[in-house]
């Protein structure tokens, strides 16, 4: 077995952690029909209307603060995002306030903290002073107009559109500057919405470019596959069917798949992109080493579930928890074991990656591969001919958008 990741690699990522996301509560005041914790899916812990105990948050923060203040810390100053996720996080504002107070008390000199939250906006009117006061980066889940929002219903089955719009408008009116700088929208595309309709609605109503995403197609229950497919709509296809897709795409820039893909292409294959000054001075690593596009564990964030499970991301199934905070508030993260398990998964696909021509620009997370505990097969495997088509399509995109080449090269930071 090849050891792609070591215990020290993971430790280094924890020392330099960029974001910690708390699943504040698994309770929600909506019952969205396509919810990732709803009837379509099987890969999550049972929802029991519970809150994450604050002591568990203190425990993981203490664990991380010790690392951030150790000699292993390499940053003079670094921003760390503390994010709150649910369920609906505004159902447990008390927890959020305590976390903020705790961090403020600790006075951690080499870290700056920013707060963010994903919310359905049902309680936004009530808590808008709070979110504005702490300058929360707010990601509001809104699928678009009333019809587009119609899967986002309350427990009585009523469309949340009216209430949500009322709250968002109130926030915009009361805190216009804050709204302008810190509020963004996430819309899930489905069979009752289209890319263009959602984009136009949110842009016209709020002057914002929404992040339009698809329903998560991992972890679908066998008996729900048909219902899922009836609800699912592909973002790329929907965008391409838009009357003004080029204008929309240009406007969305990195929020559109095409721009993200060409950015990845340039960042991975251009000889003019360097991670940092050292890479420019000493040269780029010659060989691509770690299979798949999976982040190193905790390379981007840490996700703590309501039951205290520790995951590297909120976008992967809870069965892939890498550690936990016990009920007596002890952080259990066995880095050796995490590395071993992670390497074992990577070894399952590394032979496919070795001959895959697009391996450098891979964005496939191993934890989202089907049949990972058996013999996973990567659907993104690319042979030489397919790779040439990929390169040609990226160059064709740049031919159509030549000035965006400079915009990506001069302005975009993805590292």
């Amino acid at each position, binding site marked *: 077995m090849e050891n792609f990741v070591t215990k020290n690699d993971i430790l280094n990522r924890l020392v*330099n952690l960029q974001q910690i996301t708390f699943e504040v509560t698994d309770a929600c005041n909506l019952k969205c029909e396509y919810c990732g914790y709803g009837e379509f899916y099987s890969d999550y812990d049972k929802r029991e209307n519970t809150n994450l105990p604050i002591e568990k948050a203190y425990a993981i923060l203490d664990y991380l603060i010790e690392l951030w203040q150790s*000699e*292993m*810390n*390499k*940053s*003079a*100053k*670094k*921003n760390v995002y503390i994010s709150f996720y649910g369920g609906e996080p505004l159902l447990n504002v008390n927890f959020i306030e305590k976390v903020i107070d705790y961090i403020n008390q600790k006075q951690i000199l*080499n870290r*700056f903290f*920013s707060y963010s939250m994903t919310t359905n906006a049902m309680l936004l009117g009530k808590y808008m002073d709070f979110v504005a006061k702490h300058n929360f980066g707010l990601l509001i889940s809104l699928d678009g107009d009333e019809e587009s929002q119609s899967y986002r219903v309350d427990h009585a089955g009523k469309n949340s559109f009216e209430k949500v719009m009322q709250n968002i408008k109130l926030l915009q009116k009361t805190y216009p500057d804050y709204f302008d700088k810190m509020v963004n929208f996430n819309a899930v595309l489905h069979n009752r919405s289209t890319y263009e309709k959602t984009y136009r609605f949110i842009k016209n109503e709020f002057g914002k470019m929404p992040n339009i995403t698809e329903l998560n197609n991992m972890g679908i229950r066998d008996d729900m596959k048909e219902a899922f497919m009836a609800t699912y709509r592909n973002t790329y296809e929907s965008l391409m069917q838009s009357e003004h897709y080029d204008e929309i795409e240009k406007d969305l820039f990195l929020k559109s798949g095409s721009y993200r893909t060409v950015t990845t292409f*340039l*960042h991975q294959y*251009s*000889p*003019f*992109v*360097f*991670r*940092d*000054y*050292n890479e*420019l*001075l000493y*040269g780029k690593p010659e060989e691509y080493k770690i299979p798949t596009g999976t982040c190193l564990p905790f390379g981007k964030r840490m996700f703590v579930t309501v039951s205290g499970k520790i995951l590297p991301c909120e976008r992967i199934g809870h069965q892939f928890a890498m550690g936990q905070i016990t009920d007596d508030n002890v952080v259990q993260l066995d880095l050796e074991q995490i590395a071993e398990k992670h390497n074992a998964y990577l070894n399952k696909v590394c032979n496919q990656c070795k001959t895959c021509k697009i391996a450098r620009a891979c964005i496939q997370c191993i934890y989202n591969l089907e049949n990972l505990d058996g013999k996973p097969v990567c659907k993104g495997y690319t042979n030489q001919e397919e790779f040439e088509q990929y390169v*040609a399509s990226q*160059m*064709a995109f*740049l*031919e159509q958008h*030549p*000035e965006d*080449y*400079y915009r990506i*090269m*001069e*302005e975009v*930071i*993805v*590292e």
Partner: protein
Amino acid sequence: MENQEKFWLFIKPHVYVSKEENKCMLLYNTQNGEFIETARQHAINTVNQLHERQNLGTILMEKKVIDSEIETFIREAEQKKIFGIMLYSEKHPRPVQLMPVLNIQKDIEKLRKDTDRSIGEDTLHYLTELTLYVNDDCSLRCRHCKEAYKQVNFCIQNNTKFSIDLPTLQSIAKQIQYAPIGRLNIIGGNIFKYPLLENIVDIFDAQKEVIHCWSHYRNFQPKDLDVNFDIWVDFPVSNELLKKCLCDAPQDKTTFHFLIKNTEDVVNTEEIIEEHNLANTELHPFYTGENIEFFEDNIFLNREDIFSEIIEQRKIFCNQAFNFHNFGKLIVSANGDVFANINAPKLGNVKENSFLELLYKELDENTAWRKTRTEKPCDNCLYQYLCPPTSNYEFVIGKPNLCTVKS
């Protein structure tokens, strides 16, 4: 090109283009070293068109509107693999080029503009060389002692009796243990008068493989130290003491550095190297204040020197982005003062500031690491970024360009 009406002209991505006030232009192929220097306006205009953002390095040309002068220019550029030509066909896409735009993801100015990021991220990652002047005590009276350390890693003599104490040394070692240091220079004064010399390897355990102890040959003493030695030799030489040093120093782990003032020193150095069969040697020019002719003859660059070897694109990018003589290096003096370059303003003091603070300050204030050739006369020179960045010699000579290209 002869028989076709329309063709795509494109500039290859590995071509570096430099212009002097739009009156003169250099096209340099970074793969084969071929270049064109021209002041012809039509050539400059053609390249300007290729550089327009909406063209992405490609323009459509019609043979009938090309005069013979521009055709000659295009032919030469094509032969030198600076331009490419593709016959126009509706079936084939425009051959857009990935133009050579330097993109450093963690570029300081980029990070500064991004409110979500900080220039303080991963600062320790940049510390690749540390020089510690552990003391400044020395009983030698070298003629150029007060000047040489400003040019090269020469020892210093102040006799202030400052030296880095054990707690400070331990603190430094603790702070840099996770830095990617490729070279740790221990220098004095006379390091053999430093009481903690024999503890250095233990204290800097994480860097023990890359410790270099510097000494003047007349100060050298045999010690049971598992380090690399770098020994200075200056002229005139005491043959007796040099022989003793050559005999005592572990040859496989020692580099001899010769301080060169003139051609006579070069000859003498060559004799010593040959006589003693020295394997590891380096010659360092030394400006005395009176030997500018030696520098003009041997150090100053002329146009031929600049083009004497192929300059890779990455090297040009480096010259645009930072000063590779200085980047990644910090110097700690015997009183704890810290510099990014010995001739640059002080960044702080190790007793008052952490290394993370000092590194942050250098990245923020740029006293030395990112000093490039942006001052006159280099700022308006075709070869601005083909030349290596400014060194200590420019500083001590008081001339920003050691070249004969621009006066």
